[in-house]
């Protein structure tokens, strides 16, 4: 038996594989004793992981990359041997903004290009009327939510730094902020979108899978030096997470998984709300409209758990596009090295799969090529990066 591990997490549904691995005994079956520690902010999770108070953590994929690059904080190289989730976020808008968008809409309202163009019209009208710019909430400067919102609105011609306000809000404050009118919309993970809809104060405008078919969301992160010192523990953790992810994805286990996640010391919301996310069947409007998608949140399907360095390169490209860092070959290399598919394969004792994973499937822009990030970025009109 190895010494007990301390692992930090934020109460969100995409911590599912980690929580189930511990609470359903998959970690114990690998000889691991784990103490899960619930945290309130991504800064906390990052800092406690970085200084060694945590052995591992549920972390925003871009935070793992930023930490390795030394962006926004001290530089601590991170290794991510398991991907906790693909997709899982949604964009929710206030009833007023929803009505304004629907008035301008020209085409399929689930097509993000159509809504992005409608948003551009709403923004222009508000400016003409002298109204305050729209405010969008997201969870962290280095977050998929930030990049997904920006990617979407920029495609319609809205400059996220000039035409609207993007503000950081801790996920538990999102719903209150939408209710009080502090924000007009937000992009966040489950369960917060559903809670806003249930309260009758929000409409889910998009699942992020509308914007990107496959987007790495959270990772299981460890310090690189720790991974080197504890290869057996890392492998055992990965196997426990893989088994937990498979358990969650089995439709027969969904109810039990949701019940485990709903515990007050874990996510602490109704099991029913959690189950919606796991099954991808969500109420999107207060009137009860349901939308279903098999791609809402991927935990164990389609090799979701296997870290894909190309996804890391895409996230790095977003950091460059929005001026958080300058483009450099070393930067790309460092970012890609965070996503450790090699550790994942080694833990399962298998060879890398021959088929590459399903591509990003972004609704706008050219196909992403990690070897040519510059030309990828040059294809977009709106951006903050300097060549």
């Amino acid at each position, binding site marked *: 038996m190895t010494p007990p591990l301390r692992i930090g997490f934020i109460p969100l549904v995409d911590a599912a594989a980690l929580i189930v691995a511990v609470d359903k005994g998959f970690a114990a079956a690998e000889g691991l004793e784990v103490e899960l520690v619930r945290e309130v902010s991504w800064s*906390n999770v990052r*800092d406690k992981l970085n*200084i060694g*108070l945590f052995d591992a953590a549920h972390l925003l994929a871009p935070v793992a990359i930023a930490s390795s690059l030394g962006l926004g904080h001290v530089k601590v190289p991170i290794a991510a041997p398991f991907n906790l989730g693909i997709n899982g976020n949604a964009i929710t808008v206030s009833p007023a903004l929803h009505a304004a968008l629907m008035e301008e809409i020209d085409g399929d309202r689930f097509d993000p290009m159509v809504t992005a163009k409608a948003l551009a019209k709403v923004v222009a009208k508000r400016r003409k009327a002298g109204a305050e710019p729209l405010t969008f909430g997201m969870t962290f400067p280095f977050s998929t939510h930030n990049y997904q919102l920006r990617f979407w609105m920029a495609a319609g011609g809205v400059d996220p*730094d000039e035409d609207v306000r993007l503000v*950081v809000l801790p996920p538990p404050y999102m719903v209150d902020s939408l209710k009080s009118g502090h924000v007009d919309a937000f992009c966040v993970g489950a369960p917060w979108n559903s809670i806003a809809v249930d309260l009758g104060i929000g409409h889910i405008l998009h699942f992020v899978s509308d914007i990107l078919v496959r987007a790495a969301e959270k990772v299981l992160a460890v310090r690189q030096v720790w991974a080197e010192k504890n290869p057996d523990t890392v492998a055992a953790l990965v196997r426990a997470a893989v088994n937990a992810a498979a358990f969650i994805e089995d439709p027969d286990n969904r109810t039990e998984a949701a019940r485990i996640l709903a515990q007050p010391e874990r996510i602490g919301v109704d099991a029913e709300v959690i189950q919606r996310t796991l099954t991808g069947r969500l109420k999107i409007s207060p009137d009860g409209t349901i939308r279903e998608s098999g791609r809402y949140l991927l935990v164990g399907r389609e090799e979701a758990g296997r870290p894909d360095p190309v996804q890391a390169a895409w996230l790095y490209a977003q950091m460059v596009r929005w001026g958080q860092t300058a483009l450099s070959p070393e930067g790309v290399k460092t970012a890609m090295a965070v996503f450790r598919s090699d550790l994942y394969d080694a833990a399962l004792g298998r060879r890398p799969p021959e088929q590459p994973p399903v591509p990003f499937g972004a609704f706008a822009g050219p196909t992403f090529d990690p070897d040519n990030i510059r030309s990828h970025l040059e294809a977009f009109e709106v951006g903050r990066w300097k060549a």
Partner: protein
Amino acid sequence: MSAEQSPKIVIVDESPIRAAILQEGLREAGFTQVVHINEMQSLLARIYAVDPDIILIDLENPSRDVLEAMFQVSRAVKRPIAMFVDQSDSASIQASVEAGVSAYIVDGLKKERIKPILDLCVSRFNAFAKLQEELERTKSQLEDRKVIERAKGILMKVKGLNEDEAYVLLRSTAMREKKKIGEIAQSIITASEMLK
């Protein structure tokens, strides 16, 4: 230390008691410009208004993420050089994170000047944690006493014991099961309620 030399310090803490302890400590140490913010809604606006040299925030405050964003995008507030003064000073980083305080240092402040502030905060935070712990312990002792009294009453009634005998039975059971007397008492109450 004159007012001009004293750095402007903002304390972001939702606990008024802890903030007061911290404020007092900083004042005693000669820091004259200390502002406490407990309003999370207008956090950024208030920080902009004060334009501090140092921001101290309670680690359990979710608004830490909001602050991080400010440092990412803000033009009004100067970029922090680091959350902690020096990456190599890992002992002091660890001590402050363990104590529950996080410090952001806004550009332009010398390392020698932040170290005593951080040390002071760590000791003050630890003192507060100890106070809190004592309070909790007293509370749970009081709570235990009430539960034990009720359990004794049940035992006396059901088993026809006197008060001393009931207590001895509770204590010996607790010792045998390696549990607290309060826990045994609570299970007696729970059981008796279920059997009603």
